[in-house]
C-alpha cells in the first residue's frame, strides 16, 4: 500500500532520536563497500551481455556548421565495421538536470566544436575506434560563431535583475567600500567513470544500463529523444562512478546506443573517451563577477551588489546562478543582483557540483576578505557582525542558521588567533606562510520522492527506490534509516537502487537526494511501525523495536512471531509542502586554510585545511565527512589548478583530458579536517537532515586564495591562482 505525506509543518517530534537501534548518524561502513573494493560492483559498461557491439562517437571539428556527408566509403569496408549512424535524433547537447524531456537534438546542425555527429558501430572497440578516426566528414562551416563571452560582438542578454533599496547611494555614503571584479574559469566535473551506456532492445522495449544521476527524469528524456513511450524504457544504474552534475541528464551515449541497438538488432555499448567527456557533456560556465560592498565604520554592511556574466550556447536556458546565496548570507538593506548571459558556441554549460555557490560564494568571500582589511577587522569578526537575524531579502526567518557557531568553533580549533596578521611577513626558508578563511553556504531543497520498504515474515527488510548512489552514500543512509526505525540490524536489510522499475525519487543532484528519498523511506517505516504496534496492541509511539524484536510491557517478542507469516509492504510517498517555502533553508559552514607559497617559484602548497559544517542531522558521520573532504578538495583544485581553456578561434577545448586539466592529486591535498556540528532542522523534513554533498565546495577556494594573500600580499582576482599570477607580486 502507499502512504502519502505532505510536509507542511515543522516536524518537532525528532522521531529518529527516540528509536533504539542506535545506528542513525553513526560512522557506519557503506554496505556497498566490499563490492566496490573488490571490483565486483558493476558500472554501466560492465554488464556481461551477449552479442555486444561497440560504438564510438565522432565529433564535429568546427564551432558552427552543417554536416553534409559522413564520408562512410572510407570505413564501410573495414574489418568488423557494422554500421555508421547519424540523424536528427542524435542529441545536440545532454539534458540539464530535471529537464524531463528531450534536450535539443540533431546531428546535422553543428553548434559547437566537439558536438557528436555520428556513431561508428563495430564488432570490437578497436575496430570501431579505428573507423571513427577515418570517417571523412564533410562539413560546411557557417558563421558567425562567437566563442568569447566578453568579446564585443558576442550577444549578451540580461536574464535576471533584482534590487532593493539604493545600492549606489549606500556605496556613496559608506565609510568603507569594496568594488572589485573577479573572474573564474570554466570547470569540468571529471567524474572518474566516463559516461557509458549499454542499450538492449526486446521487441519495442528498451533496457539501458547507464551512468546517470536522476533516473526518473532520464527515463522520460531518453524516451522522448527516441520518440517512444516512457513505459517502454527501463534504466539501470545501481553503481555510478561519480557524477557531480555531469550525469544529471540523458546524454549522447545513451541515445546513440539505443538508436544503434535498434538499427542493428544487437545490444550496443557506447563509452565516451575522456576527451569526449570534456568536449561534449557539460562545463561549469566561466564567470566575471563584480562585487560591491558598502559598510559602516564598524564593518556592518549596508549594501551588497553582485553582478555577473556567465555563458551558454544559443537557445539554452541554463545560466549558472552565481548569486544564489548572496540575497541571504549577509546583512545589508541595499542590494542588487544582476545576471547577464553571453551566447557563445562553446559546449553546453550546466550543473557542476553546487552550481551557483561554488563560484559565487567563493568570490563573495574573497571580497569580504578585502573588506575586512579595509575596515581593519578580523575576517571572522567581520562575518560574525553581518549574520542577519532573518533573511534580509525576503524577511523570512531561517529554518536554522549556525554560521556563527561554525565560524567561532572553526577559528578556535584551527588556532586562528595565532595567524600571521601582516600579509607577507611570515617566512620559513623559501616559504611564505599565510592563513585564510571563508564562510560556506548552500541552499537546501526537498523534492517529491517515493520508496518501497518491505518487511518479510522472517524479519528481513528490502528497500527499493530508483534513487542512485554516485558515491554519496545512499546505500548506507537508507539502510540506517530503516534499521533505526524498524530495529533491524543492517545485515538483514537490503537496499536496492538505480532501477526505474522501483518507486521514483528525484535522484542525486542539488544535494536533495538523501533528504527526499530518505524521508520516503522514513514514511514507509513509520507505517510499518504502526502496523506492528497494532498487532501487539500498543500505541505506535510506545513501541520499541530493537534487534528484530518488539519490546512492550517488559515482553520481548521476536518480529516473526508478531508477523505470523505475513509480510508488510509499504510505499512511502513524500510531497514537499508549505514547510519548504515558509523558511529560508540553507546549510552553512566555515573554512580555514594555511598555505605555503614558495618565494622563488610562486608555487602554492596547502598545508592545513579545516571545514566546520552544519547541515541538520548528520545521517552517517563517515560518509558525510567524506562528502565534505571531496568538496573541499574541489575547492583546492578551483583555487590552484582547475581551468578549462578554450581556443580563441573556434572555442574548442584545448585541455580536454586529465593530463592537461589538473584536478588535485593526493600530494596536493593535506590531511583535511572536517567537523560536523550537531543540529536538527525541523523545517527541512522529518529526518531534520539537510543535503551535504555540495556544501564543502561553496566558498572553499576563497579560504585558500585569501590565505595566499595573507602569505604574500598578492591578491589574485583571476582564478586559479597559478604561480605566474602570484610570482609577479611577491615581496
Amino acid at each position, binding site marked *: 500500500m502507499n502512504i502519502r505525506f505532505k510536509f507542511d509543518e515543522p516536524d518537532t517530534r525528532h522521531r529518529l532520536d527516540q528509536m533504539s537501534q542506535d545506528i542513525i548518524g553513526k560512522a557506519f561502513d557503506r554496505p556497498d563497500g566490499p563490492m566496490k*573494493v573488490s571490483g565486483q560492483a558493476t558500472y554501466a559498461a560492465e554488464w556481461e551481455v551477449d552479442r555486444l557491439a561497440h560504438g564510438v562517437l565522432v565529433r564535429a571539428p568546427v564551432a558552427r556548421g552543417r554536416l553534409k556527408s559522413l564520408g562512410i566509403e572510407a570505413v564501410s569496408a573495414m574489418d568488423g565495421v557494422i554500421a555508421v549512424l547519424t540523424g536528427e535524433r542524435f542529441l545536440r547537447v545532454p539534458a540539464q538536470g530535471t529537464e524531463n524531456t528531450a534536450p535539443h537534438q540533431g546531428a546535422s546542425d553543428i553548434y559547437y566544436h566537439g558536438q557528436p555527429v555520428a556513431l561508428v558501430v563495430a564488432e*570490437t572497440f*578497436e575496430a570501431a575506434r579505428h573507423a571513427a578516426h577515418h570517417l571523412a566528414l564533410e562539413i560546411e562551416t557557417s558563421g558567425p560563431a562567437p566563442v568569447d563571452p566578453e568579446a564585443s560582438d558576442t550577444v549578451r542578454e540580461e536574464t535576471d535583475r533584482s534590487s532593493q533599496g539604493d545600492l549606489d547611494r549606500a556605496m556613496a555614503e559608506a565609510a568603507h567600500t569594496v568594488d572589485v571584479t573577479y573572474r573564474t574559469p570554466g570547470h569540468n566535473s*571529471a567524474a572518474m567513470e566516463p559516461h557509458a551506456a549499454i542499450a538492449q532492445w526486446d521487441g519495442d522495449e528498451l533496457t539501458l544500463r547507464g551512468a546517470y544521476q536522476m533516473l526518473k527524469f532520464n527515463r522520460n528524456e531518453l524516451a522522448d529523444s527516441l520518440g517512444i513511450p516512457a513505459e517502454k524504457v527501463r534504466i539501470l544504474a545501481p553503481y555510478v562512478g561519480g557524477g557531480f552534475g555531469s550525469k544529471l541528464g540523458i546524454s549522447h551515449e545513451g541515445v546513440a546506443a539505443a538508436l544503434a541497438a535498434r538499427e542493428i538488432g544487437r545490444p550496443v555499448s557506447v563509452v565516451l573517451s*575522456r576527451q569526449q567527456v570534456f568536449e561534449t557533456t557539460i562545463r561549469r560556465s566561466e564567470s566575471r563577477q563584480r562585487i560591491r560592498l558598502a559598510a559602516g565604520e564598524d564593518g556592518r554592511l549596508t549594501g551588497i551588489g553582485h553582478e555577473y556574466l556567465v555563458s551558454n550556447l544559443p537557445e539554452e536556458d541554463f545560466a549558472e546562478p552565481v548569486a544564489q546565496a548572496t540575497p541571504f548570507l549577509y546583512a545589508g538593506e541595499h542590494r542588487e543582483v544582476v545576471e547577464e548571459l553571453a551566447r557563445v558556441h562553446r559546449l553546453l554549460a550546466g550543473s557542476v557540483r553546487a552550481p551557483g555557490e561554488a563560484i559565487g560564494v567563493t568570490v563573495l568571500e574573497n571580497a569580504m576578505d578585502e573588506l575586512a582589511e579595509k575596515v581593519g577587522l578580523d575576517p571572522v569578526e567581520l562575518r560574525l557582525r553581518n549574520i542577519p537575524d532573518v533573511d534580509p531579502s525576503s524577511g523570512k526567518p531561517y529554518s536554522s542558521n549556525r554560521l556563527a557557531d561554525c565560524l567561532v568553533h572553526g577559528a578556535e580549533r584551527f588556532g586562528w588567533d595565532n595567524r600571521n596578521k601582516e600579509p607577507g611577513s611570515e617566512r620559513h626558508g623559501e616559504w611564505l606562510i599565510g592563513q585564510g578563511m571563508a564562510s560556506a553556504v548552500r541552499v537546501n531543497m526537498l523534492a517529491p520522492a517515493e520508496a518501497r520498504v518491505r518487511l518479510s515474515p522472517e524479519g528481513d527488510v528490502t528497500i527499493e527506490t530508483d534513487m542512485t548512489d554516485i558515491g554519496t552514500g545512499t546505500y548506507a543512509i537508507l539502510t540506517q534509516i530503516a534499521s533505526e526505525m524498524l530495529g533491524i540490524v543492517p545485515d538483514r536489510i537490503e537496499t536496492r537502487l538505480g532501477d526505474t522499475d522501483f518507486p521514483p525519487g528525484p535522484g542525486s543532484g542539488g544535494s536533495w537526494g538523501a533528504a527526499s528519498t530518505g524521508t520516503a523511506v522514513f514514511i514507509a517505516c513509520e507505517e510499518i511501525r504502526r502496523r506492528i504496534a497494532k498487532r501487539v496492541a500498543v500505541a505506535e509511539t510506545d513501541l520499541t523495536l530493537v534487534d528484530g524484536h518488539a519490546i512492550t510491557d517488559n515482553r520481548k517478542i521476536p518480529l516473526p512471531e508478531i508477523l505470523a507469516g505475513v509480510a508488510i509492504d509499504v510505499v512511502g510517498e513524500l510531497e514537499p509542502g508549505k514547510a519548504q517555502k515558509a523558511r529560508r533553508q540553507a546549510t552553512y559552514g566555515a573554512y580555514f586554510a594555511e598555505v605555503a607559497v614558495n618565494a622563488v617559484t610562486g608555487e602554492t602548497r596547502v598545508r592545513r585545511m579545516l571545514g566546520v559544517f552544519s547541515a541538520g542531522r548528520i545521517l552517517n558521520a563517515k560518509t558525510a565527512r567524506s562528502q565534505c573532504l571531496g568538496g573541499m578538495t574541489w575547492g583546492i583544485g578551483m583555487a590552484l589548478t582547475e581551468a578549462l581553456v578554450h581556443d580563441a578561434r573556434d572555442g574548442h577545448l584545448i585541455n580536454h583530458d586529465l593530463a592537461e586539466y589538473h584536478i588535485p592529486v593526493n600530494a596536493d591535498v593535506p590531511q583535511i579536517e572536517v567537523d560536523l556540528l550537531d543540529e536538527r532542522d525541523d523545517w527541512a523534513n522529518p529526518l531534520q537532515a539537510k543535503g551535504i554533498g555540495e556544501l564543502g565546495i561553496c566558498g572553499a577556494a576563497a579560504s585558500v586564495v585569501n590565505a595566499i594573500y595573507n602569505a604574500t600580499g598578492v591578491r589574485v582576482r583571476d582564478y586559479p591562482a597559478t604561480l605566474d599570477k602570484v610570482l609577479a607580486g611577491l615581496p
Partner: protein
Amino acid sequence: MRTDLSINGEHFSLEADPRTTLLDALRHHLHLTGTKKGCDHGQCGACTVLVNGRRINSCLTLACMHDGDAITTIEGLGVPGQLSPLQEAFVEFDGYQCGYCTPGQICSATAMLDEVKAGWPSHVTEDVNDMPKLTEAEIAERMSGNLCRCACYPNIVDAIMDVAEGGHK
C-alpha cells in the same frame, strides 16, 4: 592473434585484435571488469594492475606484449568475505566514494608498500641513502598517480597507513 596470459593464477588463452590493450583485454574479452578505464591515456591510474608484482597502467600496454607474464588484478587480491588487508582498510576508513578509482588505488597501494619495503626512494624521501619511512607525505606522493575525483585522499592515506602499521592482518 593469440596470447597466453596468467591472470590471478589462472591461465587464459586470449584471441584478440593486436591493437587490444591489456585493459580492454581484461574488460572486454575476459570480463574482469574490476580494472577500470578512466582515461585510456595513462593519466588517471584507474586501470592499475600488477604485472610480475609491479604496478602498471594497463591502458598503456598491449595485451599481446604480456605472453607469459603473471598479472594480478583487483579480483585476485580479495573477494567479499575474504578481502585483503588493504581492501578492508579502504572500507573501514572510507577510502572511496563512487568506487570507480578504487580498484586502481588498491592495486597501486599493494605494490607501493612493497616498493617501500624494498627501499625505493621517492621525490619526498629525505635521505635517499636511508630506508624510506612511510610518512603521510610519502604515501601521498607515491599514490599521486591514482586520481580520485571523489577526493578521498585523506582517507586513502589513513587506510594505507593503517595497513602499513599492521592493521587488518
